[in-house]
């Protein structure tokens, strides 16, 4: 077996995608064909696309649930659903959208794009990356399995105790949710570790911290947010599960339990979470809107600072979900003030985008339409948030459809719009073919009109006092017409999504061939072929500015980025580690081969959770032991990864 050197000076070379070095790299990085290859791949591009497809499927499921709800609510006193069915459906709608769609879809973008925009060959932990994906899929299936026995979660996405406790909810509905969320938390955490380390360590040489695309900033910031907030929700659900199964007294009011502890733990997580599911999407806009405005983003530095500030402040506003719980006014006013202040960084971003439009020359592509639409939708969702930030006003607005309108404007406006726009931008990169602009415009206008038709009147529904989470409502409350309009709008929106899907289906085969850089974009991913080869870059590019592909025209910085000439790194699967702030070369990393360990670990882990759900304690214990074994095998030092002492160096 070849000895792995402890150090070497990396070779410099000029190499394109048809050079001999490239074909060597191709052989090294390629995933094997066939089922085993598919199950064991660690290629971030493959995994990113899988994330996108899976998350989009969950969007359709959640959307389907929403449409059923809208049918039930179209008129007063409908009998389409029983109260319990409605409760399960609205709960799963929220859970699906917030946890299984909104965050994973952004992970999908970032997993696909991180190595490409940062100029490296894969994520820092490729196998962990595969593990995040499998665990996410498993968690989604786990939670959806509850429908099979008619016991889906039925206490809304924020799942307040004591309704979630055994005495009010004896069936396993909540156990599915609790255990599923812990499982999902594992996946999310693994993903966050990966993003953070990739960002800190794997950027191309020369890509100092002030040259990183905003999407990477957004995702990294939210990864830190995830690491600090997800434990709160995993813990909250774990304690809930203990209360339900082992008679502990965390939330259980029989005894000294504190139902409000649930609310604190949940919202300490969930408020940061709502920024976690939008900051990367804002990053998509900050990076992609400028492409279509034909100029760099106005105010890069302040936008990055705004992103970070939003995340930090996001940890200090959770009480604004609890304004009516009877807490002292002093505490409320503090959190109310913080909620007003968190608007400032959002304002920075909004005006940066507007300035970019005004200072640029926008080309009206479909993606541009989505991004421009996003700016207005964000402001509508934002200002309704500001209204609820005012304690007295919120004590009227809370738990009415006004809040439902707020969350859909922020979630659809700041998440779905950038996602759809982003898919138009990067679909060519992923598949090599352009989406049809004609169908794209149709889908945009249908989505835009349907969305506003559904949710703009919903503010009025809320101001007219319609409470959330009611399975039906009487006539004569002034809610009938608006609800009907909302339902129609929801179906128009769904039609827009269908047009989008049709566009994907048609263009995948017949779309115009894209070429490496169809939008004339500035960042490194556009220097690769579409779709990019498994190794991404034949040589590791060296970066000299924020816009490597535009720098000739913008004339920024002193030097020029070097994309076809750089270090080769072809002694096996290798990547370059660079220093955190300046992006100076620091080490040559050995990257792992494809592996089945992530899948195996996911399967035994999920089986262990299923055991806990079914109270098969022994079975769960055995699976946990297997998981431990799988982990040790996974981490076993490998000579090819440069993890073992070489006798020859001893």
């Amino acid at each position, binding site marked *: 077996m070849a000895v792995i050197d402890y150090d070497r000076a990396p070779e410099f070379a000029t190499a394109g995608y048809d050079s001999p070095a490239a074909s060597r790299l191709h052989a090294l990085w390629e995933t094997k064909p066939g089922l085993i290859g598919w199950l064991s791949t660690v290629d971030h591009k493959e995994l990113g696309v899988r994330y996108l497809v899976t998350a989009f499927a969950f969007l359709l499921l959640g959307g389907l649930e929403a449409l059923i709800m809208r049918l039930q609510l179209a008129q007063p006193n409908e009998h389409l659903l029983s109260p319990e069915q409605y409760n399960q459906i609205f709960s799963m709608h929220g859970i699906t959208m917030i946890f299984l769609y909104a965050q994973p879809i952004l992970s999908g973008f970032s997993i696909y794009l991180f190595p490409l925009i940062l100029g490296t060959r894969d994520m820092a932990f490729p196998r962990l990356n595969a593990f995040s994906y499998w665990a996410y899929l498993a968690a989604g299936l786990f939670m959806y399995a509850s429908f099979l026995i008619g016991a889906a979660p039925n206490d809304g996405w924020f799942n307040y105790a004591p309704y979630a406790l055994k005495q009010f909810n004896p069936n396993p509905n909540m156990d599915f949710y609790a255990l599923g969320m812990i499982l999902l938390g594992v996946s999310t955490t693994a993903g966050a570790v990966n993003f953070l380390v990739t960002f800190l360590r794997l950027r191309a040489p020369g890509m100092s911290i002030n040259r990183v695309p905003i999407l990477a900033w957004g995702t990294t910031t939210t990864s830190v947010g995830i690491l600090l907030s997800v434990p709160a929700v995993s813990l909250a659900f774990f304690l809930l599960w203990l209360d339900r199964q082992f008679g502990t007294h965390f939330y259980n009011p029989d005894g000294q339990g504190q139902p409000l502890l649930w609310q604190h733990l949940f919202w300490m997580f969930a408020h940061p979470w709502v920024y976690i599911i939008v900051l990367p999407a804002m990053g998509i806009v900050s990076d992609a809107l400028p492409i279509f405005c034909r100029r760099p983003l106005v105010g890069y530095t302040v936008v990055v600072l705004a992103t970070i500030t939003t995340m930090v402040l996001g940890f200090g506003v959770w009480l604004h979900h609890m304004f009516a719980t009877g807490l002292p006014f002093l505490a409320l006013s503090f959190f109310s003030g913080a909620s007003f202040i968190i608007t400032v960084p959002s304002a920075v971003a909004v005006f940066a985008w507007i300035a970019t*439009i005004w200072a640029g020359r926008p080309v009206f592509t479909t993606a541009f339409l989505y991004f421009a639409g996003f*700016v207005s939708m964000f402001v509508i969702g934002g200002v309704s948030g500001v209204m609820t930030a005012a304690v007295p006003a919120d004590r009227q607005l809370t738990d009415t459809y006004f809040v439902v309108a707020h969350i859909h404007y922020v979630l659809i406006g700041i998440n779905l719009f950038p996602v759809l726009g982003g898919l138009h931008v990067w679909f060519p990169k992923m598949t090599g073919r352009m989406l049809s602009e004609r169908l794209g415009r149709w889908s945009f206008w249908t989505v835009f009109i349907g969305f506003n038709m559904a949710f703009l009147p919903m503010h009025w529904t809320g101001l007219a006092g319609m409470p959330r989470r009611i399975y039906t409502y009487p006539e004569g409350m002034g809610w009938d017409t608006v609800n009907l309009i909302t339902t129609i709008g929801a179906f128009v929106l769904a039609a827009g999504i269908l047009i989008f899907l049709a566009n994907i289906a048609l263009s995948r085969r017949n779309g115009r061939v894209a070429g490496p850089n169809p939008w004339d974009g500035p960042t490194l991913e556009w220097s690769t072929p579409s779709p990019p080869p498994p190794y991404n870059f034949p040589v590791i590019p060296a970066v000299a500015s924020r816009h490597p592909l535009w720098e000739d025209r913008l004339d920024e910085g002193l030097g020029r980025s070097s994309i076809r000439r750089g270090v080769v790194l072809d002694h096996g699967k290798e990547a370059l580690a660079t220093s955190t702030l300046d992006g100076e070369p620091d080490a040559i990393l050995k990257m792992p081969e494809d592996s089945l360990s992530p899948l195996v670990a996911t399967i035994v882990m999920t089986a262990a959770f299923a055991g806990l759900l079914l109270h098969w304690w022994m079975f769960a214990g055995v699976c946990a032991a297997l998981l431990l074994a799988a982990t040790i095998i996974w981490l076993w030092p490998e000579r090819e990864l440069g993890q073992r002492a070489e006798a020859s160096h001893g």
Partner: protein
Amino acid sequence: MTRPHPVSNPRRRRSRWPAAWTAAVTADALCSVAASAETPLGYLEGFGVKTREIAHLTWALLILSIVVVVITSALVVVGALLRRSRAPVGNIEQEPVSRSGRGVAWITIGVSVSTVALIGSMAWTAYTMAAIRAPSQNPAVTIEVTGRQWWWQVRYQSDDPSRVFDTANEIHVPVGKPVRVRVKTADVIHSFWIPAVSDKIDLIPNQTNETWFQADKAGIYRGQCSEYCGKQHAHMGLVLVAEDEASFKAWWDGQLTPAAEPEKSELVRAEGVFLQRCGACHGVRGTSAGGRFGPDLSHLMSRRTIAAATLPNDTGHLSGWVADPQHVKPGNLMPNLGISGPELASVQTYLATLN
């Protein structure tokens, strides 16, 4: 928006009700118990000192919001149209890339203006919080409200224990006087909300929350549980009657009277059926019916609605409810009792005496 108008003569309503109850709640039923004819649960107009202050703040923020949205949307649309490039979407590289314009001024100006607006909003919020924090005079009445899946148990407090009484789903208050409300729950979290006069306060286990409100205009207002509490969260309504001091006193005195001793033999039998079938869950003052699981029925006939403001309280709906409560509120905690026709008639006769 049309002006809501309080309805002050609830009694008129009775005769308008058809006997068939299967239509569930219909428009007039709820309008008749609401402050505002168009939107009984609306809160953009306050009918009490507290909600009036809040309505002002809400309007101010709403107008600010609309202004912000209009301005920013206009900036996006106008900017895009004015600056639109002529390059075809298929060949966007025809529009040269350049670092044209400056742009940073946008951020400075935009953020500065926003900050001023935000500080204004915060000040107004703080002012409103101070204004609604406590009533200007000591509350005249203290009501203890306990939420239950899915109805409201109400107890009127008094220093004189003989003046304390229990009722359910309908509260009366004197007009123009602050009222103190202590809220608790017997099971899960609920939220007490009468939009026209009282903002929300949650009912939380192991905790007693306190709030206050004042109705400044006589009328009948609708309240609603506004924290999700399970299957019948949708049908957990509440009726508030704000009336002049004298009527309020009379009502209170009336609530204190025990049920009349049945005289006619038919009534004695009817009471027997009631005590046997219903007494375990329902209480009636002055009888052996002492159940606490369901609403107190001592003065059921004085209430305008049944089943937590879900149905109007008339003969038809009442017997429909007793015969098949699960049809009206599927999943509610009063089971179908499989009551026979004659039994139902007896119960009905008895209930009619509870006024």
